[in-house]
C-alpha cells in the first residue's frame, strides 16, 4: 500500500518529469545499451557453440576417413590396406615405409583431397609400442628431428601429433597374433 502511494506520488509529481522528456530518453538509451550488450554476448556464445559443434563433427569425419582408408584395396581388388599390413611381419613392416613405395603411394592417392594430414603406425606387443611408419602431407608437417626418437625416421611421435587437430586412431590385428597394429590419423581442418 505504501509502495502504491509512493508511485502515485511520483507519477503526480510533475517535477519528476522533465519538460523535454530527458528521463524517458535516458531510459530508452539505457535499455538500448542493455539490449546491445546482451545481443552481442548471446551472438558470441552462438559462435562458440557452432565452433565446438564443428570441431566435434570434424573429429567424427576423421574416424570415417581412417576406417575408409583401412578398407580401401591396395592392389587391384585383392586385399585392403588393413589386410596388407596384417600380413607383414615386424621386420617387413619396419621396411614398409622406407624401402617399399607401395603403401606410401597408395596412402597419398587415397588422401589426395585432404589438405594437411599425417598417418603414423605402431606395432604393439608385450614389449610396448614401436613406430614403424610415418606418412604426411602439408606445409606444417615438417617436424624437429630428435635424437631420442622412439620411432623410425628420427621423428618423435609426441611432437608430431601436437601440431594439428585432434588425433583419431584404431587398432587392427596382425596375422601374427604376437602383435597388433595401431594407426593414428591427424587431419587439419
Amino acid at each position: 500500500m505504501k509502495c502504491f502511494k509512493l508511485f502515485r506520488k511520483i507519477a503526480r509529481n510533475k517535477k519528476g518529469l522533465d519538460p523535454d522528456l530527458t528521463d524517458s530518453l535516458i531510459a530508452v538509451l539505457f535499455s538500448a545499451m542493455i539490449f546491445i550488450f546482451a545481443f552481442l554476448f548471446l551472438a558470441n556464445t552462438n559462435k562458440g557453440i557452432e565452433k565446438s559443434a564443428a570441431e566435434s563433427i570434424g573429429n567424427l569425419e576423421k574416424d570415417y576417413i581412417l576406417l575408409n582408408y583401412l578398407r580401401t584395396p591396395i592392389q587391384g581388388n585383392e586385399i585392403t590396406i588393413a589386410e596388407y599390413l596384417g600380413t607383414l611381419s615386424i621386420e617387413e613392416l619396419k621396411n614398409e615405409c622406407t624401402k617399399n613405395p607401395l603403401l606410401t603411394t597408395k596412402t597419398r592417392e587415397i588422401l589426395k583431397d585432404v589438405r594437411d594430414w599425417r598417418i603414423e603406425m605402431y606395432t604393439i606387443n608385450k614389449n610396448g609400442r614401436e613406430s614403424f611408419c610415418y606418412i604426411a602431407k602439408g606445409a606444417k608437417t615438417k617436424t624437429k628431428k630428435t635424437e631420442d626418437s622412439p620411432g623410425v625416421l628420427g621423428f618423435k611421435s609426441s611432437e608430431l601429433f601436437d601440431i594439428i587437430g585432434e588425433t583419431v586412431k584404431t587398432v587392427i590385428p596382425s596375422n601374427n597374433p604376437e602383435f597388433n597394429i595401431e594407426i593414428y590419423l591427424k587431419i587439419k581442418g
Partner: protein
Amino acid sequence: MFKNKKAAIFLTFVSIFLMVALLYFYTNYGTKDELKLKNLGKIQLETLKTYQQAEKALLYIDLSAKYSANKTIEDLKNKKGSFKDLDYKPLDESSENQEQEDCIPTKKQIYDAFSVDFNKYLKKYIEKYKDNELKQGEEIIIPKNNYDLLFKENHLIGIATQNLKINKNNINYSIKPSFNIDIGFDLFEEYKSYFKQESENEEKTEDESSGEVPEKFSTEEYIKKGGFI
C-alpha cells in the same frame, strides 16, 4: 532530472539493480553443467562416436576372423589342434547321404574341428583388443566363443549369438558382430585338396632327392593369390 531528487533516487536504484542483474547473468551464464556451451549436443555426438567405436571393433573382428580362418586351415593341413584326432581319410562326394554319415570323418566332424580351432584363435585375437578412446567407467564387451559358422561360396559367415556392447554413462550401445568374409576357400574342398597335396608331397620328396629346392611364399605372392597362400 538530476535536480529532482525523487527521480534521481528512483533511477539510481533501478540502475544499480540492472547492473547487479547483468553482472550476475554474465558471470553465471554457462557455468552450470547442464548449461555449459561445450555440453550442448554432447550426448548426440557421443552417440555418433560410439557408433564409430563399434565400427572399429567390427573391423578388428572381421580381420581377426580372416586370420583365424587361415590359421585353422593351416591346422587342417598340418594335422594340428582339433584336426589332430581326426582320422584323415578321403571324403566321399556322397557323404551327405544318410548312409554315409557313419563314414569317418563326416563333414560334421570336419566342421566341428574347424569351429573349435577357429573360435580358439578368434578368442586370442579378441582378448587383445583394447579401445584406448574409452574413458574411465566405460567399457566395450566383445563376447568370445560367440559364432555359428557357415560356409558359402568361399565365404565364411559367422553368425553372432550375443551382441557386442559398449557401455557409457548415458549410452548403452549394442550391435550383433556377425561377419561375412571372403576367405578364398571352401573348407571341404580344402580337406579334399589335402590328399592331393599329400600325393604331391610324396612326388616332391622324390624330386628333392634329385636336387630341386621347394618354393617359399612371399608377401607379393600372398597378394597375387588374393590374400591366401
